[in-house]
């Protein structure tokens, strides 16, 4: 059957392009998407944005250096076993196999963590995944880019500090952490404990069991303790429930700060008016008045090639997050081509070099039409995270409004913890960290 299909394809190709056609290089990107199941609302937006950006690059620029980007989706249902199957299936697709894997699921990240160095496929996890993989000396093939959970927690405390009028004002304050009771939610604990000790505030950790559609007792506890701020470290249905419960309890939403998986339209719209005033961190912003989004509207949706079924979601938080995924993919291809030859398809190893030497400064971001859309990003051999900065946006009842510029995290503290944790991993697995002074 495969042979027949190849024949038909070949026949079609011959009639379309004529006998002299030479197949141009193509860069294959495998997409482990999830469009069904509990997290489909996030997945469809994110993968839609990612695909639309690559489509835009193909339409507007004719690909990267003349190399068209091709992709194929594989449905994971946010399920680890399905994710591994997708990883293995996509691995051999395309001209040079899959050249980058971005699972958009912490579970799948862990499931393929050991496989990527063997298969020589770089794995990029933007805003999720294994935090200590930011130490590139121990994890050469994993890139938890832009920012990690630890940087985010530190960024949120810095934001609260500025709101209070200085980090010294945090002393004696009470902060409640309302977290999703899972590995994801617990990522916040160690760093918040350290920050609490450093700045002298008190942190109360309140667990919400998955899925979190019942938070009566948690909010009773919050009402009794009267914290100054509540950090919402939620996921899925837990977020709107928390906002509604806060409204019922009478806790001001202006004093609630969410993480980036709590700060999308999908989290606030179901909560209705209760979400008004809620602030959340994000490594990308919402909105469609950025040149990059307008180019997508023009070159992709203008030609009716868009991926989103609901076009009004273009410019939403998840969609724009997908665009960030697309931009990083495309820029890594561009960077790798600079070193290994323009107009050629890159393989996994070359792509890894591209990611490791990624440098999206203000000038480059402006050229991409993404000034202020995502923070400037510089990756090095030792630091696979980059800026670790977030912006804070507030929900005004209908849309997200950007409140701040990029807020920095306590880099020294976070980096120290990352290196400590990565060193422990290296010791357990018997890995000798790379010497970054020898990397070209």
């Amino acid at each position: 059957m495969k042979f027949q299909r190849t024949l038909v394809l070949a026949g079609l190709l011959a009639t379309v392009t004529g006998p002299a056609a030479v197949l141009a290089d193509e860069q294959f990107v495998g997409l482990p998407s999830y469009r069904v199941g509990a997290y489909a609302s996030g997945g469809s937006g994110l993968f839609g944005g990612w695909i639309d950006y690559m489509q835009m690059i193909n339409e507007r620029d004719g690909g990267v250096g003349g190399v068209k980007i091709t992709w194929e989706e594989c449905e994971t249902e946010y399920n680890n076993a399905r994710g591994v199957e997708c990883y293995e299936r996509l691995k051999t697709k395309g001209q040079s196999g899959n050249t980058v894997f971005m699972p958009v699921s912490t579970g799948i990240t862990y499931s393929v963590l050991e496989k990527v160095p063997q298969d020589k496929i770089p794995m990029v996890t933007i805003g999720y995944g294994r935090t200590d993989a930011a130490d590139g000396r121990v994890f050469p093939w994993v890139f938890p880019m832009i920012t990690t959970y630890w940087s985010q927690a530190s960024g949120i405390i810095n934001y609260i500090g500025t709101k209070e009028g200085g980090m010294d004002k945090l002393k004696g304050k009470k902060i409640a952490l309302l977290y999703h009771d899972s590995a994801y939610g617990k990522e916040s604990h160690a760093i918040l404990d350290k920050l609490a000790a450093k700045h002298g505030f008190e942190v109360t950790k309140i667990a919400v069991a998955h899925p979190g559609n019942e938070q009566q007792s948690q909010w009773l506890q919050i009402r009794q303790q009267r914290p100054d701020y509540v950090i919402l470290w939620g996921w899925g249905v837990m977020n709107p429930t928390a906002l509604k419960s806060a409204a019922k309890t009478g806790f001001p939403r202006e004093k609630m700060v969410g993480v980036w998986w709590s700060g999308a339209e999908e989290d606030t719209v179901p909560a209705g008016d209760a979400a008004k005033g809620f602030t959340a961190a994000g490594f990308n912003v919402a909105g469609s008045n950025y040149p990059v989004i307008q180019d997508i509207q023009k070159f992709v949706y203008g030609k009716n090639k868009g991926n989103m079924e609901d076009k009004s979601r273009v410019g939403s938080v998840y969609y724009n997050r997908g665009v960030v995924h697309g931009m990083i993919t495309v820029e890594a291809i561009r960077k790798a081509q600079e070193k290994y030859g323009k107009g050629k398809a890159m393989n996994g190893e070359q792509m890894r070099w591209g990611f490791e030497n990624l440098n999206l400064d203000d000038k480059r971001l402006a050229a991409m039409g993404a000034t202020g859309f995502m923070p400037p990003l510089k990756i090095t051999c030792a630091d696979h995270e980059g800026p670790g900065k977030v912006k804070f946006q507030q929900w005004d009842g209908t849309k997200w409004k950007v409140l701040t510029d990029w807020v920095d995290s306590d880099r020294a503290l976070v980096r120290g913890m990352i290196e400590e944790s990565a060193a422990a991993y290296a010791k357990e697995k018997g890995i000798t960290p790379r010497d970054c002074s020898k990397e070209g």
Partner: protein
Amino acid sequence: MLYREAGQFKTSYSADQQIFPILQDRYGYWVILAIFGVLVPMLASAYWLKAILIPVLIFSLAAIGLNILTGYAGQLSLGSAAFMAVGAFGAYNFRLRIDGLPFLVALILGGLAAAAVGVLFGLPSLRIKGFYLAVATLAAQFFIVWVLVKFPWFSNNASSGVITAQDVVILGYHFDGPQAKYVLTLAVVAALALAAKNLVRTATGRSWMAVRDMDVAAEVIGIRPMRAKLLAFAVSSFYCGVAGALYAYTYLGTVEPEGFNLDLSFRILFMIIIGGVGSIMGSFLGSAFIVLLPILLDNVVPAIFGNALGAGFASNLQLIVFGGLIIFFLIVEPHGLARLWQIGKEKLRLWPFPH
């Protein structure tokens, strides 16, 4: 014709009581084992071995475990995934904390740890039955995952509660390629499946079935329900535990407690329902059905409709077709795929001259 046992005379009790009384089955078993043990690892691609065959085998083992409990002893359980988690984390911790512990010993110790936990959560089965017991085992599902997340000791203080399986070394040989891992998984699963097949024919297995069919009657004829039920929980959890350890060591390599969620328990339950409740063979068929069909649909559906419909619709269509096929099979054959296989054997017995 193919399955006719005419001319196969049994001259001793042991010949009459062997696992596969029919010659064709006996040879068939070795032929299948030879195909999957020798030919498949030589011919199959890494993708097939790593992404399809290994998980099918591991889930078959977990399904056998649940089948022992639910199919043979009649105790409905929704905690299979949690017992897998105990096996995985148990084997990991035994290897981490005892230097030089051989892999196979750790595998068995992981299974025994799961068995101990299984007995603990099987205690309510002495008092409650049916759906109420399912709810009680649901507690195991949530409690165990919660414990593994709550106490960082289990994951060696990893910040996110995730464990990374150590290398698999047996007698100095590193099982790191897909072929090696597959053969190892196959060997463990085949040995345990054969043991299970044998076990359900012993006095223990018959006492399970007696308890399943009517526990008062079983008690009257001298079977101790407590012993039978708890033993079923122990053996079942042992199988699930070994499956969980294999899941960590030969399949994923890195596992997190949340990976062993209720969803996985339900999948294992569906495997035995589709495959055949109370059948070892059915566990394999059910596991293959539940693991392979979604992957097949994911390949076929977008290829046929992919461009015409949106990607979101294509994904949802797969679920619709998958659910529809499950309903279809259950209506056509409520006793599962194993029963279809049995009917097929009956037909083959007469073929090509049916009555």
